[in-house]
């Protein structure tokens, strides 16, 4: 059965359309990611799925409940971790969780062991009485994950789960997510603009300017790029280009004094080429295709990291106390 089904979801704001009719289905137990730059409509989509925004048009069902007409049922059956922290930082971790349990009507005798289990798993048990104001970014995120799972939802929504965290903390968040997913049999829906983060997903939908432009497993998406990316440098790049074209039928391009091209099965192809090549090669590199390549190929532009960075900075400044 599908945990999430969206049909032609549209969301218009006053002066622009943030989501222009997206459709997808996420089977139970899948980790599904929305990948795209900031402003692509990822958060708007997640907000519609978790009933915070009403769709302008289209329909969506989460755990079989309609997000427009059965909002309470949807809310009860999902967990949410937002981009920005939504903890009450005057309260301790335990009080934040207790508060959540009250809001979701989790009975007290169920709450206590559930809280202990989650806090131990997320390595926060020893710090449960500390005010969350004194928590690090990673601890806050872990606590929010614990809170999102407290009422045993079947679907966990994560909006940019590791934004603003350092690489080591990001890895630990992901380790926890994988563990929780296996134990809780969760369906996870996440948004991200980090390519490496999207690699964790079973399937990803690439979103740009409010539309889904591609949707598949990360491997198949990368396979669609057309093989491995090889970069060569030689004394005579023009001769090298000619050789590639004539003897191997490869169309290469020159970028920054280097010859770049893609071939399928590059790992086997490259040693053979080096043995046979008459050119004096100066440097060689081979890498598998990344989701960056996929994004670039499909949309014609790179994920706008610089613009995203400035936006995040502003946002954090506003949030700062």
């Amino acid at each position, binding site marked *: 059965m599908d945990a999430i089904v969206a049909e032609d979801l549209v969301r218009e704001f006053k002066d622009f359309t943030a989501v222009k009719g997206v459709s997808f289905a996420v089977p139970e137990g899948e980790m599904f990611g929305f990948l795209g730059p900031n402003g692509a409509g990822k958060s708007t989509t997640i907000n519609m799925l978790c009933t915070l925004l009403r769709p302008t048009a289209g329909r969506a069902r989460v755990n079989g409940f309609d997000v427009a007409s059965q909002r309470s049922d949807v809310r009860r059956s999902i967990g949410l971790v937002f981009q920005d922290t939504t903890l009450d930082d005057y*309260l301790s971790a335990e009080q934040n969780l207790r508060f959540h349990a009250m809001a979701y009507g989790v009975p007290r005798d169920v709450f206590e062991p559930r809280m202990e*289990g989650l806090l*131990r*798993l997320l390595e926060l048990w020893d710090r449960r009485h500390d005010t969350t104001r004194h928590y690090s970014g990673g601890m806050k995120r872990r606590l929010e994950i614990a809170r999102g799972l407290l009422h045993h939802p079947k679907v966990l929504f994560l909006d940019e789960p590791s934004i603003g965290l350092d690489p080591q903390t990001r890895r630990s968040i992901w380790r926890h997510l994988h563990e929780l997913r296996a134990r809780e049999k969760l369906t996870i829906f996440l948004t991200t603009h980090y390519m490496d983060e999207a690699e964790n997903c079973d399937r990803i939908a690439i979103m740009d300017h409010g539309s889904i432009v591609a949707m598949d497993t990360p491997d198949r998406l990368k396979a669609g790029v057309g093989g491995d990316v090889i970069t060569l440098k030689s004394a005579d790049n023009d001769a090298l280009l000619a050789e590639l074209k004539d003897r191997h039928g490869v169309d290469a391009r020159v970028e920054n004094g280097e010859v770049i091209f893609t071939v399928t099965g590059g790992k086997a192809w490259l040693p053979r080429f080096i043995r046979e090549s008459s050119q004096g090669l100066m440097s060689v590199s081979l890498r598998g295709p990344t989701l960056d390549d996929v994004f670039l190929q499909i949309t014609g532009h790179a994920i706008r990291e610089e613009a995203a960075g400035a936006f995040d900075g502003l946002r954090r400044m506003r949030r700062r106390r």
Partner: protein
Amino acid sequence: MTNVIAERAPLAGPESLAAPPAGRRDEFWRGLWVVAYRELLRLAHDKARLASSLAQPLLFFVMFGAGFKRAIGGMAPGVDFIQFLFPGIIAQTVFMTSIFSGLSVVWDREFGFLRELLVAPISRFGIVAGKVVGGAILAVAQAAVVLCLGPFLKVHLTLEIILTVIPLLVLFSFALSSLGILMASRISSQQGFQMMMQLFIMPMIFLSGAFFPLNNVPPWLSVVSRLNPLTYGVDAIRHAFLDPVAKAGAHPLPFNVVWFGHAMTLWEDAAVIGVIGAGLLAAAIQAFSSQE
């Protein structure tokens, strides 16, 4: 401990640990209880706010009481300035606490916590009601602390007065918390909050007659003050305190609110606040429910 997570708890049933669908009423009460509870919990944690909310009335007594008592002298037969001021300061305490409680929605939004409330399976009406009830509990508790100062200031206090004043305070607190929530839905930042305090709330408090009588002010000020809903709150509380004290034949007291030669009674004041409060509450619920 891991088995707690691996296995679903028996009470949970197959769906979720969250309460089973129980309809709108359940979502209202849960929202009310959760939000009101948090208001109290937060105050207990916010020592600075607790201290300042208790220090402020004291400060007003010292400043206005000591400053004006001699200069102004008796307000009415049997009523000196401290007795005049005391109900005003009680009213002011309730106003500040209630409006602040409603406006704290701005904080909750700014620091993100509001979203945790908005996505929970609780009704928006319940959230507003929780804010209002939490604000009322805080306001009445603080007013009670100020009431305890009464005997030291030789203010006439009887059980009857207290039992009249407290329901009035609850009513005013409801109205003002609603006003705070309504304002909060219009402003989106702490800067806006500061502006609202400076331009709107402080003038309202000063023009309510809480600190000085409004019967000897220029006509334009008299009109403005009578359009200020807080004025009726102050007037009602003052009735409750001073009607029993004032010598017979002194009614109406010279500082009571007068419309076209008719001095408002306690119950008329309360009715005005009740009507305005109901309107504000409805508007607050409307504003809060329609935001996404």
